[in-house]
């Protein structure tokens, strides 16, 4: 069977690539129309399609890897999409090691999350719709990463934005959820629009949107300035989708959606689309040079910013949200340093452990009967041991404790920073790592250690098996991925080289020294976090009070939301009110009513001619006769 599947994949000809996105699309269609009737089978169907897609992806990737390193490329042309004048865009799919990485992440982690959702959404009457949206999301994400040109990518880009909106606002009857969904959509829209302008520029310059053509000829077609403009516009889209500064405001609020949604979309896949986009377009960024610096700066700023916010959150999901923003910043730091392989590895590792932690958080929330405030938790390791264990693995991975995946990624990143002479990045990156480990430790301690702080915590229970299995599998994955990549020249980054190029390294601190530093920072930070939050020896409330008002500011995301509200939202609302209350009511209604009133008044005036007296009519008659005679007389 594998041979048959493998044999079907031949470069530049029809293969089975289309199956990979088609399966979830079919699942979405079936669940959309029949989901309610399927009942609990809706979830099974949704999971099955994504799992099958994963299987096909594995087969395809294995086949791809059987080629020689230089020719690991498979293209499939589905149909001619746009053919206008000289501009042609096909619905083309492309499998190289970069997209291979992405589809494995999307389908693999996606399948586990779908499995988890069967349990998590078991009591929701609209779960058919839920699984339809989730499958639809997977479809669009796969189109995004499998696209062989920018237009298919953009199709997926917009599609995941749509599904994100639908899923964030899934429980739309709860006030605030619809607002969060709108916020997500509108904020990413800003980035999307700029990205679209970038695409337009690409068409203008290249006459096509195909990757092969653009990346092959970019060196000769683009000047540095044009490349900068295009790259920055594309990066703007990435800023929106990946919730970087200054468009990061939507992600914390997006936690209003069900936890599996947060895990899939806002941890593992959609938010990483921005990273994928920049890595895919690295040729353009490298021609520009300035663009890469911008990416680097944004990444550093975001990583630090989000880490400070994460420390001050009380909602367990919001900690994870800000943590995601921060880790995405790390990925962009790697990209900005041209360490694309490292960035992609970071993406894969992060997808695993962040999805793990989100699902774990979901398990906690489920067990706490929908309580998300960590101040109400505590001591849950006793009631929910499996959740605790898997969550801890994910957390330690993120903190950078070896031999888990996160350690390798972070260490590789700092190593690149150090070896390429970027001392500022190195220092700031280390500080951010410290903060990262700190808030992870805080989160684990507040949630699982210590004593139960509320009744809900006391009555907490472990989650059902269908929710635990994905947690366990993801935890295993976190460990495995780490082992797969034992240093920056590990298996994954090596595989990516044909696409992204090797990372040039200079000299700096020795590798063992760097490793030692990284581990020390992580362990020290975790220890401090345990001392403050886990040991019970420090009054956490007083501790926080001493850090006011910075603590509250950090909790509120340094008031970005407030600023945007004042600068953009209120004026827009005022304009809307002006238009509706003043312009529409006075001007337009005034004009219409005015015309009606004019007619009425002129009629009221005019009707007075009909006096009813015959004599007046006769008088007018005579008047007319005299006037006519006068006319005739005068004119001769």
């Amino acid at each position, binding site marked *: 069977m594998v041979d048959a599947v493998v044999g079907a994949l031949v470069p530049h000809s029809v293969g089975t690539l289309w199956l990979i996105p088609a399966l979830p699309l079919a699942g979405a269609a079936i669940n959309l129309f029949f989901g309610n009737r399927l009942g609990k089978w809706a979830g099974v169907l949704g999971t099955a399609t994504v799992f099958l897609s994963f299987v096909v992806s594995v087969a395809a990737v294995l086949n791809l890897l059987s080629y020689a390193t230089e020719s690991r490329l498979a293209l499939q042309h589905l149909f001619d999409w746009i053919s206008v004048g000289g501009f042609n865009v096909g619905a083309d799919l492309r499998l190289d090691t970069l997209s291979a990485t992405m589809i494995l992440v999307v389908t693999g982690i996606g399948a586990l999350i779908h499995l988890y959702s069967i349990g998590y959404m078991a009591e929701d009457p609209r779960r058919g719709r839920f699984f339809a949206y989730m499958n639809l999301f997977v479809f669009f994400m796969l189109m995004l990463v499998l696209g062989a040109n920018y237009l298919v990518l953009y199709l997926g880009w917009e599609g995941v934005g749509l599904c994100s909106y639908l899923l964030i606002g899934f429980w739309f009857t709860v006030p605030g959820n619809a607002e969060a969904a709108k916020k997500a959509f509108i904020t990413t829209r800003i980035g999307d629009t700029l990205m679209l302008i970038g695409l337009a520029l690409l068409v203008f310059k290249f006459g096509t949107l195909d990757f092969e053509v653009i990346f092959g000829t970019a060196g000769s077609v683009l000047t540095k300035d044009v490349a900068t403009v295009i790259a920055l516009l594309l990066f703007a889209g990435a800023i929106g989708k990946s919730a970087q500064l200054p468009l990061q405001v939507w992600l914390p609020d997006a936690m209003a959606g069900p936890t599996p949604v947060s895990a899939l979309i806002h941890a593992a896949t959609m938010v990483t689309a921005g990273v994928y986009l920049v890595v895919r377009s690295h040729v353009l960024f490298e021609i520009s040079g300035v663009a890469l610096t911008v990416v680097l700066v944004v990444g550093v700023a975001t990583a630090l910013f989000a880490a400070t916010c994460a420390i001050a959150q009380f909602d367990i999901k919001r900690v994870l949200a800000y943590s995601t923003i921060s880790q995405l910043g790390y990925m962009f730091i790697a990209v900005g340093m041209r360490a694309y392989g490292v960035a992609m590895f970071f993406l894969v590792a992060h997808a695993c452990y962040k999805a793990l932690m989100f699902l774990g958080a979901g398990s906690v929330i489920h067990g706490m009967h929908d309580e998300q405030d960590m101040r109400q938790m505590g001591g849950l390791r006793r009631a929910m041991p499996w959740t605790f264990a898997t969550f801890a693995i994910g957390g330690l991975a993120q903190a950078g404790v070896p031999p888990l995946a996160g350690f390798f990624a972070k260490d590789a990143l700092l190593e690149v920073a150090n070896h390429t002479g970027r001392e500022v990045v190195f220092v700031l990156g280390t500080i951010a790592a410290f903060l990262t480990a700190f808030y992870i430790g805080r989160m684990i301690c507040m949630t699982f250690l210590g004593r139960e702080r509320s009744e809900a915590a006391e009555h907490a229970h472990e989650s059902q098996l269908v929710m635990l299995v994905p947690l366990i599998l993801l935890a295993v994955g976190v460990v495995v991925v780490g082992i797969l990549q034992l240093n920056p020249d590990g298996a994954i980054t090596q595989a990516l080289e044909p696409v992204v190029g090797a990372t040039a390294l200079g000299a700096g601190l020795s590798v063992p020294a760097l490793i030692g530093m990284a581990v020390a920072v992580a362990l020290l930070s975790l220890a401090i976090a345990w001392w403050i939050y886990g040991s019970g020896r420090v009054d956490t409330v007083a501790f926080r009070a001493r850090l006011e008002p910075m603590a509250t500011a950090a909790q509120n995301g340094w008031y970005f939301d407030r600023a945007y509200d004042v600068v953009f939202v209120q004026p827009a609302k005022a304009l809307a009110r002006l238009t509706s209350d003043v312009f529409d009511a006075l001007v337009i209604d005034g004009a219409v009513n005015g015309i009606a009133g004019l007619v009425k008044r002129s009629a009221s005036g005019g009707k007075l001619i009909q*006096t009813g*007296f015959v*004599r*007046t009519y006769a*008088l007018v008659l*005579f*008047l007319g006769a*005299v006037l006519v*005679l*006068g006319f005739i*007389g005068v004119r*001769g």
Partner: protein
Amino acid sequence: MPLDNVVFWVFAPIAVAAAIGMLVTRSVVYAALFLVVNFGCIAVMYLVLDAAFLFAVQIIVYAGAIMVLFLFVIMLLGVDRIDVRSERLWLQRPIAIVLAIGFVLEVGAAVRAGVGFATHAPVGFEALQPAGNTQAVAEVLFRDYFFPFEATSILLIVAAIAAMVLAQRKVRAITQAELGEELENEAADDVEPEIEVTP
């Protein structure tokens, strides 16, 4: 002084005065009588204009029949008394007078442009009517305008029938009791019907 001139200048002012008198007087009967005078003057005008037949017809038909009819109706309806209600259309009279003056001026201008104030009647009218005016008129009437003549006679018949139908009361045999009642009521309130005041 030529006779026709004298006649004209005597009877024309009388005609105008009678017309004005008809307008001004308060009593309807007096108005009718003024109108009779006016008709008479016009009849004389016809005479001056060598239309002897029309002179006679004017007197007979207009003054003798039509005005008599008018006076009959006035007396029948008893509407000779003054109308006391004030005039609602207070602009009517001034505007009417203005327009009338304007009209007269227009006629004057038209006449001056068309005929000219100095033109006299041409000679030769006598030659047209060798056997007298009546004969000549009869010849023209029964020869050239025979069809209108017949049509007019039908018109007269129709008019007579119409008048009879219009003025009909619904008549049924009145019983003795009703007759007695009527006589009683008439004796009791011998009041003439008042002019109705309508809003």
